[in-house]
C-alpha cells in the first residue's frame, strides 16, 4: 500500500471545515489561519502529486481502492491520469489564492475579504473544495457523482449569504437549479449505464475502468450520450445552458467567483469528458456535430456578449463562457490536438479567470462600482493588480509566450482538421477577445481617474499580491515552458484516443 496521497488531498478540506466549525464564531483570525494552513497543505500535496506523476508510464497513478458498498459495487477508488493531475493542481492553486483573497482587511473603508461570519464562509468553501478534489480523483462513477453533488450545493449558500446584495437571491437559486437539473439528468444516464453494464457483464460495479469495457450498444450510446454529456456540461457553461453562469459569477463573492469560474466549470467539462466521451465513445462520435455546433456558438457568442458589457464582472463572466466554449470545442474534435488543447485550456483558463475575478473583486471592494465607464486610472493606486490583470488579458487573447496560446493553438489545429470552417468562425472570437480586453484595460486602468476616487482608493494588501503573483507565475511558466504540462496531458489524451478507437 502506497502513501494514500489522493485521499489525504481530498479529505484535507473536509477535515479543515469540520475543525473550523468547532471554533467559536468570534475568533475570526484562527479560522482564517486554519483555512490558510490547510490550503497550503493541500496545494503542496497536489504539487507533489503533479511532479511525481510518472509521465513516461502514463495511465492512472496513485491508485487507492477501498471497498465502500460491495453489494452494489461502489468503491472508494481514487487515481489520477494526465487529464486530471493538472486539474488537481489547479484546484490547489485556486484554493490557496482564494483563501488569501478572502482574508480581508480591517480597514473600514475597504469592504474587502469576508468579514461577516468567516467561519461559515470558509467551512462551506472548503466543503466545496472537498467535492471538487473528489470529482477529479474518483475512478468510481458513484463516488464521482457523490462528490459532484457536494460541489454543487455549497454554492447556493456561498452566493446567497456573502454575495452581491442586488442579485444574489435570484442568481443563487438560478445557478443551483440549473446545476441540479443538469446533474440529475446525467444521474439517470449514469444509472442506466450501471444497469446495462450489469446486464452485459453480470458484475454490479460503478468502476469506470470496468465500464469502459462494458460493451454498450450503439443505440444505447446514441440515446444516453446527450443527456449524460450535456447534463454535466451545464456546469461547464455550454451554450445554450450557460445562462446561470454569468449571473452566478457576478453575484458571488470574489473567492467564490474564482472557485466557480476557475475550478467548478472545469468540473463540469471534466465530468462530461470522463463520463460522456470516455464511457460512451460511440455516442460521442454520433453527436459530435451537435457538440461542435454548441461549442462553436458559445465561443463566438460569449465573446461578443462580453464585448458589449459595461459591468466589469459580467464581462469576465461572459469571457468565461467563451473560453469554456473553446474547451468544449476541443472535446468535440475527438482528435489528439483538440483534446490536448482542451486539457491545457482547462488549466490555463482556470488560473486566468481566477486572476480576473480576484482583480475585479479588489477594484469593486475599493471603488464600490464595477461599471467600466465610471472607472479609470487604477494603475496609479494599484499597479500590482493592474499588471496582473494585463498578464491575464494577454493569456485571454492567446498571446504567444503565455499559457493561453499554448492551449488555444492546438484546439484550433484540431478543429481545422475536423471542420475547417468551424475553426475559421471560432477564430473570430480571438479578435473580439483582444478588442474587449484591450479596450477595458485602457478604460479601467489607464486614463484619468475620476475625481471621486482620488485619495479614497487604497492599494491592495500583501496577501492579494501573493495571490496575484502565484497565479501569474503559472500562466507565464506554462507559456514559456509548455513542456511543463504538455507531455502529461498528452498521456491522458492517449488514453481517451484508445477508447475512441484510435481516431
Amino acid at each position, binding site marked *: 500500500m502506497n502513501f494514500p496521497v489522493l485521499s489525504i488531498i481530498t479529505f484535507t478540506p473536509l477535515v479543515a471545515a469540520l475543525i473550523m*466549525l468547532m471554533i467559536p*464564531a468570534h475568533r475570526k483570525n484562527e479560522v482564517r489561519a486554519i483555512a490558510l494552513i490547510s490550503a497550503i497543505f493541500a496545494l503542496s500535496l497536489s504539487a507533489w502529486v503533479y511532479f511525481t506523476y510518472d509521465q513516461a508510464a502514463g495511465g492512472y497513478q496513485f491508485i487507492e481502492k477501498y*471497498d*465502500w*458498498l*460491495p*453489494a*452494489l459495487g461502489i468503491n472508494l477508488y481514487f487515481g489520477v491520469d494526465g487529464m486530471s493531475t493538472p486539474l488537481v493542481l489547479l484546484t490547489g492553486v485556486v484554493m490557496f489564492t482564494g483563501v488569501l483573497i478572502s482574508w480581508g482587511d480591517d480597514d473600514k473603508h475597504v469592504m474587502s475579504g469576508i468579514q461577516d*461570519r468567516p467561519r*461559515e464562509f470558509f467551512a462551506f468553501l472548503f466543503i466545496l473544495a472537498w467535492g471538487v478534489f473528489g470529482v477529479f480523483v474518483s475512478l468510481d462513477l*458513484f463516488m464521482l*457523482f*457523490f*462528490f459532484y*453533488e*457536494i460541489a*454543487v*450545493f455549497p454554492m*447556493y*449558500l456561498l452566493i*446567497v*449569504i456573502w454575495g452581491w446584495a442586488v442579485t*444574489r*437571491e435570484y442568481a443563487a*437559486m438560478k445557478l*443551483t*437549479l440549473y446545476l*441540479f*437539473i443538469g446533474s*440529475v*439528468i446525467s*444521474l*439517470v444516464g449514469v*444509472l*442506466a449505464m*450501471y*444497469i446495462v453494464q*450489469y446486464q452485459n457483464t453480470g458484475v454490479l460495479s460503478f468502476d469506470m475502468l470496468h465500464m469502459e469495457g462494458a460493451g454498450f450498444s450503439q443505440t444505447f450510446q446514441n440515446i444516453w450520450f446527450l443527456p449524460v454529456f450535456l447534463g454535466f456540461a451545464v456546469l461547464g457553461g455550454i451554450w445554450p445552458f450557460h445562462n446561470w453562469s454569468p449571473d452566478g459569477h457576478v453575484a458571488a463573492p470574489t473567492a467564490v467567483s474564482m472557485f466557480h469560474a476557475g475550478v467548478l466549470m472545469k468540473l463540469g467539462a471534466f465530468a462530461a469528458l470522463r463520463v460522456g466521451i470516455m464511457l460512451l465513445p460511440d455516442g460521442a462520435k454520433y453527436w459530435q456535430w451537435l457538440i461542435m455546433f454548441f461549442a462553436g456558438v458559445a465561443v463566438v457568442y460569449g465573446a461578443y456578449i462580453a464585448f458589449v458589457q459595461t459591468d466589469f464582472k459580467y464581462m469576465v463572466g461572459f469571457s468565461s463562457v467563451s473560453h469554456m466554449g473553446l474547451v468544449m470545442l476541443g472535446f468535440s474534435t475527438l482528435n489528439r490536438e483538440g483534446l490536448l488543447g482542451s486539457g491545457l485550456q482547462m488549466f490555463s483558463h482556470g488560473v486566468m479567470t481566477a486572476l480576473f475575478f480576484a482583480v475585479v473583486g479588489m477594484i469593486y471592494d475599493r471603488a464600490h462600482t464595477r461599471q467600466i465607464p465610471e472607472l479609470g486610472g487604477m494603475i496609479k493606486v494599484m499597479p500590482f493588480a493592474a499588471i496582473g490583470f494585463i498578464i491575464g488579458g494577454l493569456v485571454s487573447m492567446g498571446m504567444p509566450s503565455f499559457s493561453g496560446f499554448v492551449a488555444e493553438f492546438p484546439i484550433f489545429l484540431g478543429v481545422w482538421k475536423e471542420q475547417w470552417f468551424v475553426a475559421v468562425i471560432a477564430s473570430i472570437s480571438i479578435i473580439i477577445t483582444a478588442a474587449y480586453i484591450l479596450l477595458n484595460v485602457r478604460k479601467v486602468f489607464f486614463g484619468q481617474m475620476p475625481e471621486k476616487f482620488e485619495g479614497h482608493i487604497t492599494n491592495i494588501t500583501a496577501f492579494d499580491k501573493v495571490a496575484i503573483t502565484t497565479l501569474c507565475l503559472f500562466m507565464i511558466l506554462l507559456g514559456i515552458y509548455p513542456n511543463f504540462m504538455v507531455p502529461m496531458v498528452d498521456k491522458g489524451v492517449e488514453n481517451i484516443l484508445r477508447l475512441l478507437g484510435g481516431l
Partner: protein
Amino acid sequence: MFTSVMFASILPEILILILGMLLLIIEPFWKEEQRRNAGWLTAGGLFISILISVLFGQPGEPTATLGGMIRFDWLGFFFKMLFMFAGAATALLMMDSERLGQRGEAYLLLLASILGMDLMAVSSDLIMLFLAIETTSIPLYVLAGFILADDKSTEAGFKYLLFGILTTTIMLYGFSLVFGFAGTTDLYQLADMFQGGNMSLISAIGVLALILVGIGFKVSIVPFHFWAPDVYEGSPTPIAGFLSTASKAAGFAVLVRLFFVSFPAYAGSWTFALAILSAITMTVGNLLTLPQSNIKRLLAYSSVAHAGYAMIGVVAFNQLGAASVVFYLAAYIATNLLAFGIVMAYSRITGLEDIRDYAGMSRRNPILALMMLSAFLSLTGMPPFAGFVTKVVVFAAGIQAGYTWLVVLGIINSVIGAYYYLNVMKFVYLYRMPNEDEENHPVPLTRPYAIALGVLTIGVILIGTFFAPWFNWSDAAALNLF
C-alpha cells in the same frame, strides 16, 4: 408450547410492554414537575430494548411463530429497530413540549403505538395485521388531539380519527374479500392460493384497491393524503414528526410484505397502478408544497412527496427495489425526525411556525442552523447526507425494472424539492430579524433536544457517508421477501 424462538420473535414487544408497565407504576410517584422524567425513562428504556433485542433477538432463518401469526425475519426486525429508534427520539423531543411532556400518559400512548407498529412489521396473518394496525392507530388518534386546550390539536385528532376509521374499515372489507376468495388469512398461503387462480384478475384489482385505501392512508399517498397537512399542523410537533416518519414507515412495511408476499401473482397490475400513484403522489405533493408558508405544512406536504419517491422502490418489484425502500425509509425516518425536532426546538422559544420566522436563525443558534441545513439538504437529496445515496438506490431500482419514465419524473420532482428546501435555508442563513439584534434572542437547546438532535444529525450523516452497513441490513431484510 412456548419455545425460545417464539420468545425471541416478540422480544422487543415484551420489552416495550415491560417498559410501559414500569412507566405506569413509577409515574404516579413523581411530583408534577418531575413528570417530564418519563421522557428519559421512555427513551432510555427503548434504547436498552434495542440493545437487548440486537444482542439476543436477532432472527435466523425466516420462521413462522405463534401459530403463524408472526413472521420472524430480518425485514420485520430491521423495521422494529427503526420504529423503536424513532420512538426514543420522539420521547426526547416530547419532554420539553408544553402540555405534552409533563404528562406520563403521553409516553405510554407513544409506547403503545410503537408496540402496534412492531407488530405491523411482523404480522403474517390478515387478522393479526388488522389488530396491529388498530393498536398503532388508536393511541396516535389520542396523541394527535392530545392538547385539548388547543382547537387545532383537537381538530387534528378528530380529523385523523375520522379518516383513519373510514380507511381502515374499507381495508377490512378488502381483507374479508381476500379470505372469501382464498379461504385462508395467512399471508404466505395466500400466494399459493392465488397462484392457483382462485381469484380472477378483475376481482383481484378490486380487492387490492380496497386494501390500498387503508395502506395509502397510513403512508399518505395521493389521493389519501388530505388529512396529513392539517393533522401535522395541528398535532403537537413531536407527534407530527412521529406520524410522518415511523407511522409512514410502518405502512410501507405492511405494503411490501403484503404485496410482495401475497400478491405476486398479480404483480403486473399492481406495480403499474402503484407506479401511477407514485407519479401522482410525487408531483402533487411537491406542487402543493411550493406555496406553503407554515414550516410544518411544508414538511407535511413534502413528506407526501417522499412517500412517492419511496414508492418507486415498491413499483420496481425486485430485490434491489425492496432493499431500496427499506434503506430509503431508514434515512427518511432519521432526516424527517430531525427536521421536525428542529422545528420543535425553534418554535418552543419563538412560538412561531412560519417560514418567515426563521429569519436570522443562523445567528441565533449556529449549531441548530447547521443541523437544519443537514436535514433539509438530506431531504433535497444532497450528499454527504442520507437522502442522496438512498434516493440514488431507489432510482437505480426503478431503472432496473424499466420504469425510466417514473425515475425521470422523480428527478424532476427532486428539483422542485430543491427549490423549496433551499428557500427555507435562505431565511435561515440570509435574512435577519426585523431589528437585527439576533444576539439578544438566542435559541438555547435543552438537554433532551441536544441529545436527540445530535444523534439524529450524526445518523443522517452516517447513513449518507458510511452507507454499507445500512444498505446491507436493508438488503438482508429485502431478501426475506423473495
